[in-house]
């Protein structure tokens, strides 16, 4: 019998991933969806094709009714709280798939606690911006017991994502370790774009001319982010695409990993300093791309371009 799926966490990433699960996941039962702020779940339910999803009124209900429970939450505290609450019920035989970006130690601890309750856990953090979640183009990193990972794979490449990085049979923490390290490349890319565009501005080169170069030399995420900087999207949004609070959390975990393993990530320190300036200027509405505004300010320009 095909498993009953549930999805907890309907932020920028979760909504797109649910859409693709429903469209391409060959689910024979409606996807159970739950979000702490219920309105999000209701709105998504309305948007998805009729009968393909159903709103759970509580976390307990979502977990109790499902065989495989996906989670995609903002930070370590959120996922710890959620899975602790879930574990209070009977979760024997269930499979938890956590897509949240958290510290590998958090993942390891959660896996252990879930296992003691007779359930399984696969870590499945993903790479890609919300637009890629919408179009099913994420890169999925899977870690956990091989048999459990096999149960999750049908929903990854070809459904929510375009590629899998496979840590089958390896500790769940390996996936979030790769995710944290991988995110330092994203963070450093945004820092570099910010430094480059500010210099382009102040030197008279012009942002458009620089963008032409970026399009030719650096295909991929550089181009989208370069566009976001130039259009002012980094400060104009009502809600951030990649929230500054989440970005700082990622940086904090990377710097912690560096410290405990005896290395330094000076680039991440620089970028995090700028993220702090973004928080100061825009609060939680700030975006990782706001690093551009912070670098601009250091150059005597206005945060907003």
């Amino acid at each position, binding site marked *: 019998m095909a498993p009953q799926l549930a999805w907890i966490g309907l932020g920028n990433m979760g909504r797109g991933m649910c859409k693709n699960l429903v469209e391409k996941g060959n689910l024979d039962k409606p996807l159970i969806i739950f979000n702490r702020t219920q309105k999000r779940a209701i709105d998504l339910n309305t948007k998805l094709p009729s009968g393909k999803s159903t709103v759970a009124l509580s976390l307990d209900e979502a977990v109790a009714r499902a065989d495989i429970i996906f989670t995609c939450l903002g930070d370590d505290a959120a996922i710890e709280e959620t899975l602790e609450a879930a574990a209070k019920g009977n979760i024997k035989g269930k499979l938890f798939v956590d897509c949240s970006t958290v510290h590998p130690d958090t993942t390891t601890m959660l896996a252990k606690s879930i296992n003691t309750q007779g359930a399984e856990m696969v870590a499945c953090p993903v790479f890609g911006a919300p637009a890629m979640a919408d179009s099913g183009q994420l890169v999925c990193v899977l870690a956990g017991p091989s048999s459990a990972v096999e149960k999750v794979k049908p929903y990854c490449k070809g459904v929510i994502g375009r590629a899998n990085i496979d840590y089958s049979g390896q500790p769940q923490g390996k996936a979030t370790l790769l995710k944290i390290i991988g995110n330092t490349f994203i963070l450093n890319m945004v*820092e570099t774009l910010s*430094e480059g565009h500010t*210099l382009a501005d*102040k030197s008279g080169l012009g942002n458009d001319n620089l963008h032409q170069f970026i399009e030719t030399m650096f295909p991929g995420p550089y181009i989208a982010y370069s566009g976001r900087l130039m259009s002012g999207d980094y400060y104009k949004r009502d809600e951030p695409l990649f929230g500054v609070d989440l970005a700082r959390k990622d940086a904090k975990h990377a710097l912690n990993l560096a410290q405990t393993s005896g290395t330094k990530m000076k680039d991440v320190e*620089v970028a995090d300093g700028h993220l702090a300036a973004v928080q100061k200027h825009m609060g939680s509405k700030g975006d990782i791309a706001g690093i551009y505004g912070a670098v601009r300010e250091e150059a005597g320009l206005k945060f907003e371009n």
Partner: protein
Amino acid sequence: MAVQLAFIGLGNMGQAMSKNLVQKGNLEKPLILWNRTLSRATSLSENIGHSIVAESFQDAVSRSDIIFSCISDKQGVRAIIDTVLKGDLKGKLFVECSTVKPEYIDALVTDVRAAGAELVAMPVFGEPTMAEAGVILCVPAGKAEAVDRIKPYLIGVICKGIVDFSGEEPSKADLLKVVGNVFVINMIESLAEGHVLAEKTGLGVGKLQELLAAMFPGPYMIFSMKMSTGDYYGKEPLVSLDLIQHLADMTIDMAKESGTSLKTYETAVEHMKTVKSHAGPQGDITGLYGVVRMESGLQYENGKRKEI
């Protein structure tokens, strides 16, 4: 009437570009070659054919319609142009590919135009093996008619792509070379730090490279492979660190003059100095990885280089 091309400055880049011009450029007339060390020009000419060695650069310039130059000397092509300005340059087109300061190009353009000639600045991105394979990136800037004159020799001949600054003042291209190199250097620094973190946390580099291949196609993979295969120590670098430091100095100066802070770039430039002090003339820009390794208590050399 058939166009006569010349190439002045036959270092690693100039040689590769000349070879591609001859082999793929459909040149009606033999390419005129000149180099300060004449033997380089002679052996190149023997190697590629369809070319002749000029006796002097004055000779090369006076006989040619389009003169390419690629000189690593800080003076660049200035000394050459000062000399030839005395002659008749009407209608000639100079294509300056050397990495030089934008102000320097502005001054050259003024002098060249006063003599009835034109100048297109065309700095390039890429290193000698890429130049050999014809896959560098060229940035031609200057009057549209002038850039049009050289387009037949660009994509598919000496380069894979261009950033087209037709209609822009020539110095814009060198401005881009300066700003653009921030991206290349910062990328290498970012890779260096990521690689070392992957090693020190026990993640290993294999899956990291799977991720890079999926998320950051292109230059990231190339440099990541250089790091993981130890292709950054124990041999002659593809590009001498001195040339890279020369460009870095220009970038730091421009940042200072314009009041821009390039904190990540500055970190990389500091690390570059350590590459130089550790590896001397064998110092490779990818050695930024070796430096981050040393800062983390590891050896500069990661032991992955297969000795021949």
